[in-house]
């Protein structure tokens, strides 16, 4: 993919992010941070590529290290978000 296509995706995604995040209710700003944290660990994709690559043992170990770190974030981030969201309840109308 050439640079301009990638840049286009990036700029569009920034705009999408802008509008989507403004629509997040302030009550959920903490879960928002937790979940953005989890999804930014999509960087694990890069870590997996590095860990899978043949040729450079250094790169491989760095990649595996990054896989561990990103996994902490992915599992931790999604799990803690789930835990928080489960606590938000409506008033029971009796």
């Amino acid at each position: 993919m050439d640079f301009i296509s990638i840049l286009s995706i990036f700029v569009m995604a920034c705009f999408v992010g802008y509008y989507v995040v403004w629509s997040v209710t302030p009550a959920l700003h903490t879960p928002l941070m937790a979940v953005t944290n989890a999804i930014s660990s999509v960087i694990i994709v890069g870590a997996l590529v590095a860990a899978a690559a043949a040729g450079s043992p250094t790169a491989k170990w760095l990649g595996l290290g990054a896989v561990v770190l990103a996994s902490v974030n992915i599992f931790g981030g999604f799990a803690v978000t789930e835990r928080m969201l489960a606590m938000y309840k409506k008033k029971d109308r009796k």
Partner: protein
Amino acid sequence: MSFVGPIQTTPSMADVMPIEHVVNPWVAFAYLASGVLFILALRGLSSPATSRRGNRFGMAGMLIAVITTLVTHEIASLPEILVAIAIGGGIGFVIARRIQMTAMPQLVAAFHSLVGLAAVLVGVAAYFNPGAFGILDSSGLDILKQSRIEMGLGVAIGAITFSGSVIAFAKLNGNMSGAPILLPARHVINLAVLALILVLVAVFGLDTPALFWGIVILSFAIGFLLIIPIGGADMPVVVSMLNSYSGWAAAAMGFTLHNTAMIITGALVGSSGAILSYIMCKAMNRSFISVIAGGFGAEAGAGGAAAKTDRPWKRGSAEDAAFLMREAESVIIIPGYGMAVAQAQHVLREMGDQLKKHGVNVKYAIHPVAGRMPGHMNVLLAEANVPYDEVFELEDINGEFAQADVAFIIGANDVVNPAAKTDRSSPIYGMPVFDVDKAKTIFFIKRSMGGQGYAGVDNDVFYMDQTMMLLADAKKMVEDINKALAD
């Protein structure tokens, strides 16, 4: 790594592009799908009712991204990778289960540091093994210039995120004093280091690979230098800002690796953090620059102590509070960071329940910067089973204080200070605050009369005719009120 996706490269571009293994378009499609699922995950957070489904979308997106990567790359050793995921995942899962909700800000800061460090590791790995990432130029020996710049930026942002988050974590977790640490000439030092990093990235793009390490080291240093002068009260902005950086780091890595999932996610997270920083700054009426410049708590603290006066104030008891609130028609509770410190959210909810049994209309009012991160108070109240439709934001409830019988302030201070509306010389002037002074009676729980809040300014509310100070540990005081209410 690259792929032939729906967006075709032009022939001229293809000539200069490195020789890459061609992956089928489904891979591009899969990464795009996970990007879209991440958008839906954030979209779900527009209401608590849809939020959990949103979180599942996020998980699905991540699963697709990981599996796609695993099946399309010749994985040298799948067991090793699975072990790495299991170790990390296990640690993350256990932390997520055990962490106390009051410790959320430091947890998020710690997670940000991991994203930053992972970005640095991936960048360094790409530097060692550019072939695997498909970023070699046509000679097959050197990394593409453009990729080097992207890589340099990604590593720099990642390193800043890492060291900055480590400091933020230490401050939030109490391993380090929350007070700002002010180095002489820090603005000059910081700007010089930042400029130097940018120059190094540019030069690294042109040539001289050894500069890569210079970028890494300087970026670690600047992350540290940027956060140490920022005081505890500004932490909501810092945490949001680091959230944003972790996104930009992921996006920069996405540019290097030509990966749509990473670019979309990075942009989403980056804008999310930026918007949260903006909301936090606006809620304190401070410019982003002044927060980043740091030193807020230190300067104001000195001024506030000098201005301290001996004005008369009234002390109330738990019985007074219980009696007056039971008779009230409406009570608005304003929680702040002090409630989190005292872990008083559960007893507070019990108090609300008791009052409701007496027919009192109970509402909770939350200031955007209450606590140490955006939405911190909302999570704590939710944890204590306070229904979210009883919890209101500043602008939604501020008009109701004039009709309220009781404003019950627990662990908050600056966010109810009328000086923000009237006193031009106050460091918090212009910050939107709750109009508690309009309520008929004010109960103000505070540990002692000595403390001045984080901005270090005196609060006129203490000395008002309708104010009763409840001086005690927040949890203890609310427990006593509960006892008195039960009698």
